[in-house]
């Protein structure tokens, strides 16, 4: 039955996360925006890897036996819980959310493609993800970092940039090719624990926004890891190239709604604050007047809310589909495309609406407007999402629609 309200359980999670965002993140939001590379020690209480250990680290993917005679029960499961949590943490502070110990993108990769044995070994690590290279961004199939088997070890060589939490994590999931001539099918991911000789964090970036989150350049020089640190399987598929690469890429089907949720959270933060400031100035929002009889500021806020609400529902749909076993690659990209552009536009417009108060560092509006930009870029830019949607919608291959 069609219902687009959160269940009581998810609404409870929402309240909990909002309270964490309000009480733990907001008070230190400006501090770590200013102290760019300092570790936000206040976030230790939120350490995810310790939570995973405490809960017995039940690996994802263990499913209960189902009675095939029973009609499928609708589920609001982990994917929905994830986007709801992320939205409200990101309402607190996107940069700080990305700095919560234990919750790296590498962990998502481990969850998505690791074998049971690997999940056991790596499940409690705080793992970041190293994909991008100086000459390889959205085109992640073109990476040139290499992995070569030498005895029982992989030897990794190359340079990775834009590694979120690369400085603070205790392991890196690095993408490397086994044979550059074999294209995407030869790209595999490897878990490299911190302290492994040959892996060095050489630089932390200075950024427009999400300054609380560290973004590292990592150099791999003859870096050796055990054979079993390759996530999943080592075979290079000859025929089903796209399927093999797809296995690595599938991490993103799970994480795109998450980044979209960050965008929604950040935009909501800006909307809430702008509305509060405008109400102090005597504006009232009753959702009654036709737009042309409302003041321009009022009308703008309504338009932003409508866009925001629509984007949020796309995010929830993508997560709901994941929870209910429906393929959601296109819908995940739709969510990220709309949430990314709407989130950025809203935060920027809120600054404009609030004048020098919005532009100034005495409020967080200018910070939200800086933070939101990356959310329309990382884990697939706006244009990459449009490309994914367009190919699916129009039945195009990547050779046809470049």
């Amino acid at each position, binding site marked *: *039955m*069609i*219902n*687009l*309200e*959160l*269940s*009581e359980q*998810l609404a409870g999670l929402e309240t909990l996360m909002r309270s964490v965002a309000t009480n733990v993140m907001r008070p230190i939001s400006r501090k770590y925006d200013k102290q760019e590379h300092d570790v936000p020690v206040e976030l230790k209480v939120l350490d995810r890897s310790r939570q995973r250990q405490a809960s017995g680290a039940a690996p994802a993917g263990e499913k209960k036996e189902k009675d095939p005679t029973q009609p499928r029960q*609708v*589920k*609001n499961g982990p994917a*929905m819980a994830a986007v709801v949590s992320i939205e409200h943490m990101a309402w607190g502070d996107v940069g700080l959310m990305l700095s919560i110990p234990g919750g790296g993108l590498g962990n998502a990769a481990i969850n998505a493609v690791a074998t049971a044995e690997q999940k056991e070994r790596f499940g409690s690590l705080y793992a970041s993800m190293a994909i991008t290279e100086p000459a390889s961004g959205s085109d992640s199939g073109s990476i040139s970092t290499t992995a070569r088997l030498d005895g029982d070890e992989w030897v990794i060589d190359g340079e990775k940039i834009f590694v979120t939490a690369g400085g603070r994590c205790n392991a890196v999931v690095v993408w490397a090719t086994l044979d550059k001539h074999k294209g995407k099918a030869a790209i595999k991911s490897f878990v490299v624990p911190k302290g492994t000789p040959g892996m060095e964090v050489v630089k932390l970036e200075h950024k427009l926004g999400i300054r609380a989150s560290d973004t590292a350049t990592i150099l791999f020089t003859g870096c050796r890891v055990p054979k079993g640190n390759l996530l999943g399987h080592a075979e290079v598929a000859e025929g089903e190239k796209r399927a093999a690469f797809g296995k690595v890429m599938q991490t993103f089907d799970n994480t795109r709604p998450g980044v979209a949720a960050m965008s929604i959270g950040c935009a909501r933060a800006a909307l809430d604050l702008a509305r509060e400031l405008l109400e102090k100035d005597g504006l009232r929002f009753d*959702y*009654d*007047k*036709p*737009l*042309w*009889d409302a003041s321009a500021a009022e009308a703008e806020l*309504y*338009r932003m*809310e*409508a*866009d925001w*609400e*629509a*984007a949020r*529902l*796309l995010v*929830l*749909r993508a997560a*709901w589909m994941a929870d209910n076993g429906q393929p959601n690659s296109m*819908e995940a990209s*739709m969510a990220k*495309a*709309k949430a990314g552009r709407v989130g950025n536009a809203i935060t920027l417009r809120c600054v404009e609406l609030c004048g020098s108060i919005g532009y100034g560092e005495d409020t967080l509006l200018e910070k939200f407007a800086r933070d939101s930009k990356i959310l329309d870029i990382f884990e697939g830019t706006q*244009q990459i999402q*449009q*490309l994914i*949607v*367009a*190919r699916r*919608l*129009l*039945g*195009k291959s990547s050779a*046809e*629609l*470049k």
Partner: protein
Amino acid sequence: MSEAGKLLFDLTLTDEQALMRETVRKFVDAEVRPFARKYDEAGATPRELWQKTLELGVNAVQIPEEQGGFGSTRSPISNTLLAEDLARGDMSLALSALSTLSFVNCLLDFGNASQKAQLLSACAADGFHPAAVALAEPGTRFDPLKLATTATRATSATGNQGGYVLQGAKTLVAFGPEAEHVLVIARPPHGAPGEAGAFVVPRGQAGVSWSREAFMGLRPAPLHRMQLDGVQVPESARLGGDVPFQLSRLVDLSRIGAAALTVGTCQAVLDYVKSYCNERIAFGEPITNRQSVAFMIADIAIELDALRLLTYRAAARAERGLPFHREAYLARIQAVEKGMKIGTDGVQLLGGHGFIREHMVELWYRNLRAVPLLEGTLCV
């Protein structure tokens, strides 16, 4: 945990809705879409088509059994799906075919027992019973909370009060002089903003005059201007039951209806441009091999799905009895803006061909411009 507390976020249709959806889609593909152009050119809808929509159960499903209906629960969500699916065939047909349903829904929501008994059975009957809700008024910047049409208490020669006198003008009223009943929304002469009553005006009522309206779009829908000059209606014509008439509920339900019509029409646009642009060759390959074209289509799909979810959310809240004023307002904003954007992009994607009346996109373009006007027209 309470039953309501266990309710999950869910996008699954009920079996009844899925069946209705399939039936309506088949009907639309066979009986509506192929003829939409012809009816647009003629500026008229054949009466048999309304009779056929009636056979889908459009009006009778949610009318109680004692009034001759099927007695299903009043369901704004089911009505939203119905409006969407009919509009995928043709917005004009959806608007006229569901005009009586809109009247029925207002009766179900606000009518008293005797009004329901008298009027609902006529609407549930086998024959087509044209009816309409008249809220919108001619003029620029129409605001439903600032109605110009008034309902003044009538005073007889002996000083006894009885009935009302209606004065004003309404626009976009379906069926006009053919309408068996029109629910006229009017305000008391000295009422607060938003204060209003709903009055049933029967066909042939003295003081009512009609003129057919010709618009940029919605041409096959029999839309009329209604002039009310000292129209006297009895006390019993005023809707009012256990629940008093609420103008805001009527307006909000009609905004969901307008958004649903937008969703259906935009779905038609998307389907059309997908296949046209995939087949259209330029520079030696399908034009969808170019990002500038492909991304426009991707954005149509993205904004359409977003609007659809927004519309469903407002309808589902209405169905559950939750407040839905804000959600309906936001759905209307997106429907007006994104709907027209999709309409104009639909023409653009066909280039010069889109401007020719051989293709449907120009018709959808004209119809989508009507969305902001559809206040009080289709209450789900």
